[in-house]
């Protein structure tokens, strides 16, 4: 335990930072809770994208840079398809598109590169990223599209009795969070309780042994890329309904990188917890740390949301390179 003190210290510092605005009375409790919820909501989206990374990395050892592009591609597909059919049909068809994409990627990109260095596969996914960004525009167009989930966007006032002035929350955000929780529950069930889930965990642990008990690697890769595609679709639809479907959605993926570093590349739990930590952390820093910087150093104080996640990831890299929930990597020399 003694060696863990830097991690404990860092986590303690984060918690103190989290509590400080309330403790010093810098923020009214109602507003504080609003900011917290806003952060959690963004965090849920980061978690969804990061989960896609973790799923693929665990099952095939590939760091899939294209996860963000997959989010954009899926969101575009759903948005454009929904113009011609009901939303539910567009989402179902979108899932079919993502599964087809998984097949193509396995056949064209992964299979020829099997047993190559990790860096080669990483470069290949970089290629997939640019292909998907461009191909998405070719097929679906490059304007800003909207996805209408049919849930009112007006915020509602809740808990007026508890906090002065109540708390404003967005119904759509609540629905999105519920969907994300349901998705995580379904995935947990799939991985823990089904033979296919067991096979996927087996592949993640040891490729060679998995093959020797009759698990076909290729098919498992298609399945895991399909699952990652579906997770990307859910993230894309939620994100798209809040901000509109546009190129900037694919940049969310860049925020998912610090999330997976913080949470651990090999852990789905880590992706979820990491996403929430970073979502809350950056929102809190933006709202409460910003004004402090303005006051003390006479800085402009904005834009903290843009770099906070990376600084946090860097700190975690220093004290715990494998991430909060990742497996420690031990090389045999």
């Amino acid at each position, binding site marked *: 335990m003694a060696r863990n003190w830097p991690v404990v210290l860092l986590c303690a510092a984060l918690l103190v930072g989290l509590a400080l605005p309330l403790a010093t009375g810098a923020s009214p409790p109602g507003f504080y809770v609003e900011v917290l919820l806003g952060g959690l909501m963004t965090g849920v989206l980061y978690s969804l994208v990061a989960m896609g990374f973790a799923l693929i990395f665990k099952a095939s050892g590939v760091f899939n840079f294209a996860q963000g592009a997959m989010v954009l591609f899926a969101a575009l597909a759903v948005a454009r398809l929904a113009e011609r059919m009901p939303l539910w049909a567009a989402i179902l068809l979108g899932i079919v598109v993502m599964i087809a994409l998984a097949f193509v990627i396995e056949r064209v990109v992964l299979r020829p590169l099997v047993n190559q260095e990790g860096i080669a596969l990483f470069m290949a996914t970089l290629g997939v990223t640019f292909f998907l960004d461009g191909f998405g525009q070719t097929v679906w167009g490059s304007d800003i599209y909207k996805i209408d989930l049919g849930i009112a966007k007006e915020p509602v006032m809740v808990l007026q009795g508890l906090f002065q002035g109540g708390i404003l929350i967005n119904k759509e955000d609540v629905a999105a969070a519920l969907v994300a929780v349901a998705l995580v529950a379904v995935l947990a*069930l799939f991985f823990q309780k089904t033979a296919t889930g067991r096979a996927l965990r087996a592949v993640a642990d040891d490729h*060679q042994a998995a093959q020797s008990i009759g698990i076909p690697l290729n098919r498992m890769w298609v399945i895991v890329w399909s699952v990652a595609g579906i997770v990307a679709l859910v993230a894309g639809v939620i994100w798209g309904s809040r901000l509109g479907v546009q190129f900037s959605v694919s940049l969310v993926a860049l925020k998912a990188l610090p999330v997976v570093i913080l949470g651990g590349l090999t852990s789905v739990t880590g992706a979820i917890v990491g996403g929430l930590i970073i979502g809350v952390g950056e929102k809190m820093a933006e709202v409460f740390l910003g004004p402090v910087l303005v006051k003390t150093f006479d800085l402009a104080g904005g834009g903290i949301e843009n770099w906070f996640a990376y600084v946090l990831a860097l700190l975690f890299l220093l004290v715990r390179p494998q991430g909060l929930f990742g497996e420690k990597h031990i090389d045999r020399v």
Partner: protein
Amino acid sequence: MSQRGNPIGEVILSVEGVSLAFGGVRALTDVSFEVREHEVRAIIGPNGAGKSSMLNVINGVYHPQQGTIRFLGQTYHDMDPHETALAGIARTFQNLALFKGMSVLENILTGRNLRMRANLLLQALRAGPALREEIEHRERVEHIIDFLEIQPWRKTPVGRLPYGLQKRVDLARALAMEPRVLLLDEPMAGMNLEEKQDMCRFILDVNDHFGTTIVLIEHDMGVVMDISDRVVVLDYGKKIGDGTPHEVRASQAVIDAYLGVSH
């Protein structure tokens, strides 16, 4: 050896003229031998003799440049490991290759994966036929667990078990596939004397109780001679001996290979 439950039968697996090279390195040169149903067949030889390559060819990890494998009357030379597994060939690993993130029970259950038929949704909900199927598979697995005497560790993550026990879990997982032929890659490697004796007993019991045909690799001659029906001896990728342990032990070529006569 005469009191066994399953008398040795017809040829079930034959290796015919197999040659394997990695670039300029010849790992195997024109190796042929047969394995009969229900027998314990050993492949022995000094380090680097090509034993593991031979096993990997049978298992489908390597595809030989020449020669074929005939298994249950079917000829193949380019099947992948998961296809040979489907056909009924299971294996264990010299360097353990267990699924470290799973419990002993789950590891062994993965061996049943091939035989699970119910659809995903039913499995996830534990409903109807899926539940019945799961119970059926669990019964098989529990039987194997009892048989290999690993009951106390059923729920333990495999990473925490001592080496000898992990080897036994590896064997259990392979057995769960109900293979016709079981390939054991140095099952005794790295074990102490007591663990070796246990393993020998388990191998013989498995052969006797399940009737599984066993092909095992060892470089420790003593152990092998006690438990195998017939032995193939490899040296520098070539077959230099084939016969009962008694015959092999008496062969001049084998003695030379083990005592190191210059080639």
